[in-house]
């Protein structure tokens, strides 16, 4: 099938009429008469979004999400590639497991699915997983996400070993002594009043402070997942200013938008790890995303069944949906307020994550000859978020009931339409 898209504006403000032929962008004249005509007047055409931080739950927890449902949510959110975190059952800690996730993506995916490998066996933090064999299967991003690679020596070895493969450690930064398994509320006057186990901001930044020094020392490639605190921003800014370490950082849409008081009702929808922070932290991470200290938005899309959320706050599963709302949140906070132009949005949500994840065919500028991975965005449309309409199998949607941009009109992945309104 082929498309002809006319009237769209690109991220840089220029106009481009283009065709989609054989999975690539082409001149309009290259399309045949049977091509579907799309009037994109008033819409913005962006490269397909790339999520470096997705939980797809298959294999292991298919009642919460499958590759099919999760990638459909991705397509609805404007994504054409997602990186699947390895906290699956079995964990993605072998080449075979990585191959299986990639195969599921090819079979069921509504976007590209790229497996992330575990850093350690079973994500237990003790012994390195078969990093090289996974890398031979194309894995470039390694993470024990959900658990912190807290042992300094393991982190050093992983960073060093992965240099052979251009691999990267994506760290879930959480000092397990400062923020243990029950920690669930940002340490603040709110945790103090509610009596919820506290998760202090420094439990994140002390790990990142160590890691960026190990990254510089080893020359390894390091990525800090879901940065949530002002202290972490300071550390990353300092390390980047030194300019000697290959480090990148990520922030989630929910940490950018939602604050600690959301947990005051003990609504476990708002339980997430790291926890929602207070306004001073939120402003710090927003500023850092704008100035590039934080490189990318990663959704940490984390579907959970209702039964895994219907527990007391300290034992309910942490995590919230994000793929469908990420672009809307970024638009609301940055585009609609004039803090970011579209080109910067493209960098933070498409080009930079593709570059960090080593996906050369994703995050490309929209131009004739480039792969046809794109999203058409209506910059003015809004809607009230309704969790019941999500493509995800889960309903742990923290944006339910909020009035937000509703931008995605059409998503095209590798030349085929994966979503249209």
């Amino acid at each position, binding site marked *: 099938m082929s498309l002809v898209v006319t009237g769209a504006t690109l991220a840089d403000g220029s106009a481009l009429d283009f065709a989609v032929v054989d999975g690539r962008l082409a001149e309009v004249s290259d399309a045949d008469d049977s091509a579907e005509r799309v009037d994109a007047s008033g819409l913005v055409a962006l490269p397909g979004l790339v999520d470096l931080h997705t939980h797809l739950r298959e294999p292991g927890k298919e009642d919460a999400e499958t590759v099919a449902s999760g990638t459909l949510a991705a397509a609805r959110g404007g994504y054409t590639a997602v990186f699947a975190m390895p906290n699956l059952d079995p964990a993605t800690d072998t080449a075979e497991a990585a191959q299986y996730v990639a195969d599921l993506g090819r079979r069921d995916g509504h976007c590209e699915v790229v497996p992330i490998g575990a850093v350690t066996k079973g994500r237990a933090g003790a012994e390195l997983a078969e990093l090289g064999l996974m890398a031979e299967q194309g894995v470039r991003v390694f993470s024990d996400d959900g658990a912190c690679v807290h042992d300094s020596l393991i982190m050093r070895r992983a960073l060093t070993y992965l240099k052979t493969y251009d691999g990267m450690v994506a760290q879930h930064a959480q000092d397990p002594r400062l923020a243990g398994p029950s920690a669930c509320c940002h340490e*603040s006057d709110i945790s103090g009043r509610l*009596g*919820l186990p506290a998760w202090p901001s420094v439990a994140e930044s002390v790990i990142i402070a160590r890691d960026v020094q190990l990254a510089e020392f080893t020359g390894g490639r390091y990525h800090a997942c879901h940065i949530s605190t002002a202290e972490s921003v300071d550390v990353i800014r300092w390390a980047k200013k030194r300019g000697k370490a290959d480090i990148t950082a990520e922030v989630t849409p929910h940490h950018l938008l939602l604050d600690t008081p959301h947990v005051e009702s*003990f609504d476990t929808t708002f339980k997430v790890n790291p926890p929602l922070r207070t306004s001073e932290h939120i402003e710090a991470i927003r500023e850092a995303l704008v100035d590039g200290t934080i490189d990318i938005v990663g959704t940490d899309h984390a579907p959970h069944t209702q*039964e895994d959320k*219907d527990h007391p*706050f300290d034992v309910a599963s942490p995590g919230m949906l994000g793929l469908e709302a990420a672009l809307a949140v970024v638009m609301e906070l940055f585009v609609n307020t004039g803090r970011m132009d579209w080109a910067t949005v493209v960098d933070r949500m498409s080009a930079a994550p593709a570059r960090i994840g080593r996906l050369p065919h994703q995050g490309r500028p929209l131009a004739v000859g480039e792969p046809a991975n794109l999203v058409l965005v209506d910059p003015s449309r809004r809607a009230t978020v309704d969790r019941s309409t999500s493509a995800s199998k889960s309903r742990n949607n923290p944006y339910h009931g909020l009035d937000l941009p509703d931008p995605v009109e059409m998503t095209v992945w590798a030349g085929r339409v994966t979503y249209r309104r």
Partner: protein
Amino acid sequence: MHHLLSAADLSLDEARSILDVAEEMHEVQRRPIKKLPALRGRTIINMFFEDSTRTRTSFEIAGKWMSADTINVSGKGSSVSKGESLRDTMLTLDAMGVDCFVIRHASSGAVAQAAGWVRASVVNAGDGQHEHPTQALLDAYTMRQHFRDQGLSDAYEGKRIAIVGDLLHSRVVRSNVLLQATLGGQITLVAPPTLLPTGVETWGVRVTQDLDAAIAEADIVMMLRVQRERMTGGFFPTAREYATEYGLTAERVGLLKPTAAIMHPGPMNRGVEISSEAADAAASRVLDQVSAGVAVRMSVLYHLLGGEGAA
């Protein structure tokens, strides 16, 4: 009033009404036949997902003396131990037509969550490190009795209440602070900085490490239990050091005003936060607190289920 989840839910009028009715209930306690018909035909389930002897017994006696049918469900013997979620457990028992749940749970917020799932009234009998509103009410009741016994005004305004101990993990202190914010008592909190809740400076109370000074000016000295696991958790070096620095030792009893009372929500760690000399001193109202607990809980149940404000 449909639920009692937080001491902050109580208006001044509601709090006073509960304390006043508790005085009438306390009279019943002194009768040979301790039975009122007020809650006849009402069913109360005591759901204790966390071990408790005194609070569960206190609620059970309160319900029985009000002629309610009371049933005890413990976390271990219930379907919770078979893997049923808290929500399903609550929905199941609620469907039986129960009038009131009295819930103790180890997780902060679990009682408020449960209240959101059921039609029946819910009383928070202690949720994690969050709140224990009936404890704060029985403490207030005991304080008022003590003020009267000492010939003092029975108003809370102008009275100084020192609360000493593991404040970080204590639901008792949180409910006491919230209730006294309504009743008017001036609270001073004393604890090592490692056992102070984050944000305590926003609570509208005084915070100090100077125990001797706090005791010397207090009308009420409330000592809180230091749990065993805190002693190995790095919150303070040793039990010996804690007892010396923050315990109500025999020597410190001598600092008390002659009209002051010693209180403790129990169970006491004698020799740690409180010496035997203090626990057994004439100024100790610890057993009066236990006695008041039944009367206050009778009053709370009456306000939720039997009074004018009954559901």
